[in-house]
């Protein structure tokens, strides 16, 4: 695993294991884009590749790898399973097993009829078809489209700023008891400085509620309460690092508009009927099962919106002893919450792998989902975006029409020397495939347009 150390830090051993076991099918003619996708996937650890070749009349551009199989093999850590087939043959096999692939990637398809055929194959199989990424590059421009057949759940979104679930507004009884062991009217400054800000903020919230505060709790109210409860300690308290932290994080004690609300919405609108059909991807199925378990716990216990505590605590000013005690309280509660979920699963005779359950509970706030769009592989044809239209025309008609030629904005739509543009899209497509396979990070939803002249991109939903 040492080979993958630098990326294990992004998606962990579980994500890497999924990559190592995944099979990816790439469809298209021999282009730099296809080759770049292959290279990036093999490097990341994908150990099974299938290339379904589309024969292309157009002159092939020069490639970096001379012999795909021979040149890709040394980039893999294990034996690389590599297979080439003629796409036309495969499309004639009505029983071809598409479900063995984790992702299907279409790179620079050139025939409209091929796309129609593939779309029909996909349609016939309903939800039982892998996610499809379809990409094309011309000159300095390119697009990438994700077409899902079932809802994709993300186990860990890895948001830019980590949010801790601290339950400052509704601490559980054991935490309240611990907070009550600190009596601010009886401590000296030295003892005070060892009290974690979490304790201080919970005291503020308790005070605000006790004082019959019916208003929504705001940062200002929390800060006022803080100075009041610390009054007995005198003015020097203002310089204590834990006091400063409590002021800085006062907002954590207020109701927040963030992903936890998003998740509540997700739960509320989750349909039980989801569970009826066969799920293509085991992770999607397991994450949904877990979400439904949360829903049923909430309903049974009449506890509004039960969400498992993650149990992680940020570092903060505190004595070692106080911090470890607090951390223990969070960890114990997290374990109990997890146990409740396990029990609920047992009662409803559902099974979820231990690893998924573990990540789900310890990073609960990071769950996201992407729903399949109504448009299929042919969605790229019915858009009003001029750049996408121009690209699709070049892709399937092979040449620029007069309409496009008159558009100054697409200078370089057929420029030569665009290997690096292919390399860019090759990176982007492989990245999206990796996200889908690992269930880490949020994939595009669902059309990505690349403008290499301006170095800019847009994403919108078709």
């Amino acid at each position: 695993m040492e080979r993958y150390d630098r990326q294990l830090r992004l998606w962990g051993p579980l994500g890497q294991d999924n990559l190592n076991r995944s099979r990816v099918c790439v469809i298209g003619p021999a282009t730099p884009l296809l080759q770049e996708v292959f290279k990036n996937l093999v490097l990341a650890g994908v150990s099974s590749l299938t290339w379904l070749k589309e024969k292309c009349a157009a002159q092939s551009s020069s490639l970096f790898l001379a012999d795909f199989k021979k040149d890709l093999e040394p980039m893999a850590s294990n034996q690389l399973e590599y297979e080439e087939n003629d796409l036309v043959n495969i499309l004639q096999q009505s029983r071809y097993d598409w479900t063995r692939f984790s992702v299907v990637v279409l790179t620079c398809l050139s025939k409209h009829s091929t796309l129609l055929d593939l779309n029909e194959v996909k349609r016939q199989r309903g939800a039982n078809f892998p996610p499809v990424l379809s990409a094309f590059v011309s000159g300095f421009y390119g697009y990438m489209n994700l077409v899902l057949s079932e809802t994709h759940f993300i186990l860990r979104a890895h948001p830019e700023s980590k949010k801790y679930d601290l339950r400052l507004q509704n601490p559980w009884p054991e935490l309240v008891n611990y907070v009550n062991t600190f009596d601010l009217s009886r401590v000296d400054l030295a003892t005070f400085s060892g009290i974690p800000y979490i304790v201080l903020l919970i005291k503020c919230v308790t005070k605000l509620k006790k004082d019959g505060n019916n208003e929504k709790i705001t940062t200002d109210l929390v800060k006022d309460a803080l100075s009041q409860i610390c009054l007995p300690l005198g003015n020097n308290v203002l310089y204590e690092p834990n006091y400063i932290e409590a002021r800085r994080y006062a907002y954590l004690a207020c109701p927040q508009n963030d992903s936890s609300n998003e998740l509540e919405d997700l739960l509320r609108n989750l349909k039980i009927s989801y569970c009826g059909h066969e799920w293509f991807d085991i992770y999607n199925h397991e994450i949904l099962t877990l979400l439904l378990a949360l829903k049923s716990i909430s309903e049974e216990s009449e506890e509004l919106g039960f969400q498992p505590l993650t149990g992680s605590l940020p570092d903060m000013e505190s004595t070692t002893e106080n911090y470890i005690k607090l951390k223990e309280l969070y960890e114990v509660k997290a374990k109990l919450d997890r146990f409740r979920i396990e029990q609920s699963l047992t009662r409803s005779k559902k099974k979820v792998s231990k690893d998924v359950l573990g990540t789900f509970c310890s990073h609960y706030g990071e769950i996201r989902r992407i729903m399949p769009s109504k448009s299929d592989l042919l969605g790229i044809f019915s858009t009003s975006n001029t750049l996408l239209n121009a690209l699709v025309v070049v892709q399937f008609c092979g040449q620029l029409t007069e309409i496009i030629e008159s558009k100054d904005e697409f200078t370089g739509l057929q420029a030569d020397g665009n290997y690096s543009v292919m390399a860019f899209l090759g990176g982007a497509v492989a990245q999206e495939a990796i996200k889908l396979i690992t269930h880490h990070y949020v994939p595009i939803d669902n059309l990505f347009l690349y403008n290499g002249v301006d170095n800019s991109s847009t994403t919108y939903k078709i």
Partner: protein
Amino acid sequence: MDCKILVLGAGGLGCEILKNLAMLSFVKQVHIVDMDTIELTNLNRQFLFRDADIDKPKAQVAAQYVNSRFPQLQVVPHVQDLTTLPPSFYKDFQFIISGLDAIEPRRYINEILVKLTLESNYEICIPFIDGGTEGLKGHVKTIIPGITACWECSIDTLPSQQDTVPMCTIANNPRCIEHIVEYVSTVKYPELDVESTANVEFILEKCYERAARFNISTEKLSTEFILGIIKSIIPSVSTTNAMVAATCCTQMVKIYNDLIDLENGNNFTLINCSEGCFMYSFKFERLPGCQVCSCDSN
């Protein structure tokens, strides 16, 4: 015009840049500078290297790979610290593309290029395209010395060091396993070379001991974890490297073909793929009074 290009760094970005340049017919000669040797953890992205190349110099192996397959391109490796190359070395290139992992060499090369431009009264003006990555994020800066913002102009935009933990916490009041590792590696045994596996094992053992004394959970503790903290390892993956390196090369192609407005166009590009896929460019203005590129600073 046949093009001669200098690539700084033969790591994740360097390998990608070299490959992209090899596919451009107008590029005839590339020099590549890197003083490092190949390690196993490079192989998830530095695709010009094989397991058998471990411990060999990166620049040399990368050059060999491309030279043996693309005879129309000549790649010249320089296995050395780029700051030891004389300023005169740099002036023969049409472009300089960097995929470095440290700040100092970038500042060094930036200063040399700005000086070359100002001292030659703009007769020499070598575009400097700088790429960088961290996890699924990256940036590309296009610097036209003496004309657009130089590398130094934007130095204040670098993230400041993470909130550093006070020494008294690390020494007397450790709360988490990171504090333990910090103490053992920087206070107790700062002289140990962490390139040696035996030393890392030793530090690991000492961390376990100290964590037990303070009753701190060792769940996360492992050699990888320790190295991540000591060497402040930046996560890195083939896909982001490919996208950033490609953006650097596309910039070069556009400048070569006179497709962009160098003076007024956008010179900074950000890429972030952690939520969807996102690329954004903007114009970073020159910093008045910049220590390197401002004329009135002298």
